[in-house]
């Protein structure tokens, strides 16, 4: 008989194993930096609108398999039965916040975190990013970009 596993059934064992591994890992003094405690309200009001506009495309960070994923209206939805145009759900916002917060982790300090380096032009302190467009332009060409500065302010306000 052909198996007809749902997505939840496929992912549940993997998620449980991941949680178990994570729980064990947390008890070890492995030296990993903690995830900064970022402000969820500022994220919702100021950061999320930028991420959904600049990052959340289906083939980019709207893909749920990406470590950094952004869900919301007009882009990928977390649940298949959510209407394309419906406002962002609390669950989508929470997952996006969690994923974005994980992008603040850096051994060299939050100013070097992926969220602040990946979208920035290499010439201005960024790093290689698949989201650089076909003309060679990064998401943010300069650190002074107003949208980038919103990300910076949120990230730097996060406490380790």
């Amino acid at each position, binding site marked *: 008989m052909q198996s007809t596993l749902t997505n939840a059934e496929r992912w549940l064992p993997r998620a449980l194993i991941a949680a178990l591994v*994570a729980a064990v890992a*947390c008890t070890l003094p492995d030296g990993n930096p903690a995830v900064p405690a970022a402000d969820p309200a500022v994220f919702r009001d100021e950061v999320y*609108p930028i991420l959904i506009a600049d990052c959340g495309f*289906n083939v980019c960070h709207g893909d749920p398999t990406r470590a950094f994923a952004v869900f919301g209206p007009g*882009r*990928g939805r977390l649940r298949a039965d959510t209407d394309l145009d419906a406002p962002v759900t609390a669950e989508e916002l929470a997952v996006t916040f969690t994923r974005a917060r*994980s992008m603040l982790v850096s051994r060299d300090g939050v100013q070097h975190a992926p969220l602040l380096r990946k979208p920035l032009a290499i010439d201005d302190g960024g790093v290689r990013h698949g989201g650089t467009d076909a003309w060679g332009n990064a998401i943010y060409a300069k650190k002074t970009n107003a949208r980038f500065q919103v990300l910076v302010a949120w990230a730097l306000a996060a406490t380790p």
Partner: protein
Amino acid sequence: MTALAPTTLTALAALTLVAAAPTVGHAFAELPRYAEPALDGGGGGRYFTGGPSDGFGCSVCHHGGAAPTVTIDGLPDQLAVGTRYDLALSWPDDGRRYALALELIDGQGQHPGVAVPALADQLPAMKCAEPAGAAAVTTVDGGGRRVVTLAPCGAHALHLSFTPTADAPLYFAVSVVASDHHEDVRGDGVLEVRRTLNASSGGCSAGGPAPGALVALAALGLWWRPRRRRDGIAVRT
């Protein structure tokens, strides 16, 4: 807020996703949506032409289908100020619905007099098949840009013109989606074409190119001709 190790955070994110089906995207083809704020599901001012102003084309969302073949006639290799250039884009009737976003722009973000024929002057191929004869092409102006969009209503050609007013390069970009008729972004083919159109004075010294450069250009031409057919576009100048 309690600080968590990255591995824990990843696991929590995974658990949050357990009961949720993976993302199912949807089509993003209605013109007014592009100008709406991204928070409302719009493009946030991004028209996805693939030009320098947008950065991205339709392929950031639509994916999975065979790239369409589009013929572009009239794209000049070199521009002359004050000359009107007529472009014609066409694609076969392969059962899919085509939509596109196109623009020409200069280094200052201004369009070079891009014009589309009035509906009454358009060929039938430029108009919708459903409803028959309706306008498929819309232009949107803003901040010096003029974006030409074509709705997925059965048209299979686009004609437009432009007239450079300055001796400077122009950037041409078009992003074409061939939809599989399902209301999502999967299974759609995308073709994105970007070209830099050089100004008449661009690139050459006062004495003209060196003979070696001409040989290199000829060699490049021989190499380029078969390749440009493989990327789903046939350009005739």
